[in-house]
């Protein structure tokens, strides 16, 4: 039976290629997402600077969130990633060195050092052994001396800004490394955290058993918040942001991988369904001459699975380079460190192969059900027009999908807050799309009925024929409408989710920013005393230090806390009231000194704490701090931020210093004049610049755009996939009408008349698809915009929507007309008698 099916393949190359492409591209996308997922999970980063150290000890960046009931073993503990570098106590060095097999343990320090306009990494000279970095000229650095990279000469005096202070050093040696090396005591002072190191590189004795040493080191650091890294994991110690990036990568890959699998199922099922519909006569003939329904079912399934095996193989071949390319784009956008190695091993391969085969199998089951229902008398009937389409199963599934869609709608509005409301968007789009697809023949019929009159009014005979065709072939027409609906729906929903999210975030940021001018540092921060100096500049009404980080509420139990933690902003008690828009409902901002915090009122309520109470915070660097609540403010939903003193926050960041100073001009003082005054103050401080608030909001908006761009990239991939299926289904559906076109031309139609008729039909199909797609995206967007913004309409330019529907219509019309033209090539008499 399968042999027969495969033999007939070459007589329907069009549908074969369409189905094959749908399956192959599905596998490509699933594998690419799988690869990104594995890359995120593995976080393989070959070490560069620490390459000579077979073992690297680094701070544990994982934080296990407190459980509601710590004694309940059933409750899952969520794990967050600490945002700042967790440093290690220097005391560990001796412990590690006493482990047998360890030659030496080197405490590594890394801090930004700015020379002129460029910022490089500064280290102590002892770190040189970890790469190893060798002198190409000169000698090791003594106090006040450095070893510098290419472009410098021995004896040169250079001014280096490190730890926010400019100092002059003499170049004592040269190396091939771009980094700058200081004498160890200098480095310790410049890094600003004596007694703690960023990482410890462990050099082993020749012939030492690495496994045994690793075990020994592990025991030596037990009790400290440290992890021992080997192999390709060591690179993570060099790039502390890799942990967070991997986590984001995992989320991104799972979200879009899941979407890709559902869309692939949808697309493959539609394509297979269409191909079975077009083989109705062949199937009916087989039934008439003695195939049982079961045999037809097995034939369709077997054929699909056989096809899927080859399609999946091709998909796997292309999926790895495609995933690599995607990863390259993400790295180029700065979402993941470039040093991360893309891995698509056997697990994503297995997932891609398994899911692709499963998708084909499920889709084939659906198509085969229809094939098995073929009645043998259809072989004898002249025209195969399907009228009945609504089965009980279809109805039940449609009701379930709509029910799910409505439930998500309600859940989004009722439970979700702020940006996380977007998380229901993906499933919501699919539920509505599948639900509408299931009842598409009915909707198509109604819409054709409505559109019939205007279409006939403007397009004459062509429109008359087109609407007649559309009315009598609603089932077939619905099959080509659904991909258009899906493409329009997914594209519109994803685009406007992003534009809305970006707009709302920018708005929230701008609203909160009351400063007129901002001093920002490109050298890792501004000294803590700098704020006071700024405050005394004439024309300054208020100045506040600024630092931000992410932390967790360690106690009491915080039910509203996610593994992403809370955004913490550090501000100065003296200037915060004037430089931010925060208005306290209880307490005073001026009390924000020492170990204290100002909470959003709703958050404090969740915690059951009020002004005067104390909560325990886990800061970004892993330190635990007890802070007193000194005030409450009404935070904007979804953008809640904890406020703490700037120096407290800065002390627990990797940089260790406030990053910015916010300045509010006194009444009557122009920002330009103030900027000029401040520039004078900055004369001796390379790396600090004055910027007005527009620069700041623009920079924030740019960061937001990067995040949005990544989502566009991933969604674009899936939209492109559905676009392929739009073209696929148009080509399939049109080329199957060869006989009909032939007959029509025998009756006196010119080619032009047929093409015009198909133009109107394609227009009808696009309009119906676009309307349904818009409904799908609306059902997704409305709850989201309601929650984030309180409005019904999304933010973002209207031309994006026009672009989406324009593209969808253009794809539909062009692919239909091209196929029509090709189909019209044979002489009408030949076409009319050809087997359907």
């Amino acid at each position, binding site marked *: *039976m399968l042999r*027969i099916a495969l*033999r*007939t*393949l*070459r*007589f329907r190359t069009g549908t074969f290629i369409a189905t094959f492409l749908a399956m192959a591209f599905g596998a490509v996308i699933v594998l690419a997402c799988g690869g990104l997922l594995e890359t995120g999970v593995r976080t393989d980063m070959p070490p560069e600077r620490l390459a000579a150290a077979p073992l690297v000890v680094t701070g544990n960046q994982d934080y296990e969130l407190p459980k509601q009931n710590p004694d309940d073993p059933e409750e899952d503990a969520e794990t967050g990633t600490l945002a700042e570098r967790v440093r290690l106590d220097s005391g560990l060095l001796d412990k590690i060195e006493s482990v047998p097999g360890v030659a030496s343990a080197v405490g590594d320090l890394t801090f930004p050092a700015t020379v002129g306009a460029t910022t490089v990494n500064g280290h102590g000279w002892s770190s040189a052994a970890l790469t190893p970095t060798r002198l190409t000229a000169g000698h090791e650095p003594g106090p006040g001396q450095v070893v510098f990279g290419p472009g410098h000469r021995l004896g040169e005096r250079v001014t280096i800004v490190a730890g926010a202070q400019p100092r002059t050093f003499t170049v004592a040696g040269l190396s091939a490394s771009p980094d700058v090396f200081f004498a160890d005591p200098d480095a310790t002072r410049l890094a600003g955290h004596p007694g703690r190191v960023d990482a410890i590189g462990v050099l082993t004795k020749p012939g030492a058993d690495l496994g045994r040493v690793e075990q020994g080191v592990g025991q030596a650091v037990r009790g400290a918040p440290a992890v021992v890294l080997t192999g390709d994991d060591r690179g993570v110690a060099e790039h502390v942001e890799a942990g967070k990036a991997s986590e984001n990568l995992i989320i991104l890959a799972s979200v879009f991988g899941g979407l890709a699998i559902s869309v692939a199922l949808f697309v493959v099922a539609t394509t297979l369904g269409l191909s079975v519909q077009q083989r109705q*006569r*062949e199937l009916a*003939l*087989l*039934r*008439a*001459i*003695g*195939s*049982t*329904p*079961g*045999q037809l079912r097995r034939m369709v399934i077997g054929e699909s699975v056989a096809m899927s095996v080859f399609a999946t193989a091709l998909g796997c071949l292309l999926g790895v380079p495609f995933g690599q390319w995607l990863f390259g784009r993400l790295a180029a956008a700065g979402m993941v460190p470039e040093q991360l190695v893309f891995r698509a091993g056997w697990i994503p391969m297995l997932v891609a192969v398994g899911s692709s085969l499963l998708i084909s199998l499920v889709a084939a089951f659906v198509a085969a059900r229809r094939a098995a229902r073929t*009645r*043998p*008398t259809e*072989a*004898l009937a002249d025209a195969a027009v399907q009228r009945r389409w609504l089965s009980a199963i279809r109805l039940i599934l449609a009701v379930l999908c709509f029910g799910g869609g409505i439930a998500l709608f309600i859940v989004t509005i009722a439970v979700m807050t702020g940006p996380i409301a977007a998380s229901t968007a993906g499933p919501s789009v699919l539920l509505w799309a599948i639900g509408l697809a299931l009842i598409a023949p009915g909707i198509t019929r109604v819409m054709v009925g409505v559109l019939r009159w205007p279409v006939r009014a403007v397009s004459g005979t062509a429109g008359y024929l087109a609407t007649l065709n559309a009315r009598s072939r609603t089932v077939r027409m619905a099959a080509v409408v659904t991909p258009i609906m899906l493409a329009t729906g997914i594209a519109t929903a994803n685009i406007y989710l992003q534009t809305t999210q970006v707009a709302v975030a920018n708005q929230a940021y701008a609203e909160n920013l009351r400063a007129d001018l901002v001093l920002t540092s490109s050298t890792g921060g501004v000294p803590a005393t700098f704020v006071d100096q700024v405050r005394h500049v004439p024309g300054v009404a208020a100045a506040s230090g600024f630092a931000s980080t992410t932390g967790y509420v360690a106690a009491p139990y915080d039910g509203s806390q996610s593994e992403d933690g809370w955004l913490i902003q550090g501000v100065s008690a003296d200037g915060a009231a004037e430089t931010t828009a925060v208005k306290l409902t209880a307490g005073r901002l001026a009390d924000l000194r020492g170990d204290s915090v100002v909470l959003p009122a709703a958050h404090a309520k969740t915690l059951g704490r009020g002004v005067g109470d104390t909560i325990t915070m886990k800061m970004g660097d892993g330190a635990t701090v007890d802070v007193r609540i000194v005030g409450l403010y009404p935070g904007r939903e979804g953008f809640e931020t904890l406020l703490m003193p700037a120096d407290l926050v800065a002390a627990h960041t990797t940089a260790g210093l406030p990053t910015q100073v916010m300045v509010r001009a006194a009444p009557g003082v122009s920002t330009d004049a103030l900027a000029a005054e401040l520039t004078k103050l900055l004369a001796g401080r390379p790396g600090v610049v004055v910027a007005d608030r527009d620069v700041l909001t623009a920079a924030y908006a740019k960061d937001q755009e990067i995040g949005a761009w990544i989502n566009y990239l991933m969604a674009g991939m899936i939209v492109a996939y559905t676009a392929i299926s739009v073209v696929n289904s148009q080509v399939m559906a049109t080329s199957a009408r060869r006989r009909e076109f032939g007959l029509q031309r025998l009756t006196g139609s010119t080619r032009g008349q047929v093409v015009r008729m198909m133009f109107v039909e394609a227009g009808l199909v696009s309009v119906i698809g676009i309307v349904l797609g818009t409904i799908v995206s609306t059902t997704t967007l409305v709850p989201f915009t309601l929650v984030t913004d309180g409005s019904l309409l999304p933010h973002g330019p209207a031309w994006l929507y026009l672009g989406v529907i324009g593209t969808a219509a253009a794809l539909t019309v062009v692919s239909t007309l091209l196929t029509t033209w090709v189909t019209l090539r044979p002489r009408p008499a030949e076409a009319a008698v050809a*087997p*359907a």
Partner: protein
Amino acid sequence: MRQMNEMSADVVRLTDVRKTYGGKRNSVVALNGVSIGFGRATFTAVMGPSGSGKSTFLHCAAGLDRPTGGAVVVEDQNLAELSEVELTRLRRERIGFVFQAFNLLPALTVQENVTLPLRLAGRRAKPELVSRVIEQVGLADRRKHLPGELSGGQQQRVAIARALVTRPAVIFADEPTGALDTRTARDVLGLLRGAVDHAGQTVVMVTHDPVAASYADRVVFLADGKFVGRLAHPTAEAVAERMTHLGAWAEREPAGAR
């Protein structure tokens, strides 16, 4: 109307078969109580004007469609008692088909098309039987050709070979010469006639062509879903005369036609 039962000698017997299409409000009666039997090694032509129920009759008799009422018995097996799968099995073992058009799978060669019913039944085709059948229809030198490379008459002969290869109890032919020219049609009809005379095959053929009908042992006439007459040892002229009469008769009572 006369009963035409020749009882147990019949290969196929229809008793009071009714078939209505559509729902309650817009129902159309296609067969209105049809009873007939087809004896072994007989060649029957079923004739009637358009909409007389010829096709529906053929579909019901061949087990392609299920009647609304009455019984169809093929070789003592009542088709109503069979499940869809059992019905299909009976069809491929005991019933052969020749249709007007789209008879063959375009991707399969002549030989593969002929052996398809055997393969569907999971049986091995005996090479000498297959060769004999293909030779019988005069296509011995075309067995590796695809249907697209054959003329209409040759394609129809392949279809007859396919119908013969399972040695069915009965062959149903639906306008087998409808798409053929006179000379080719004569070849095809000769083949069917030969199958009845030499192999003892039973053939039931629906046609509207009096010449085609003249190859049959008898002709039965359908109008408005009922048998309205029969003619033994027909000649083309006699059949044509009767058909003209039937046409007029059908015009007088156009209601219920299908």
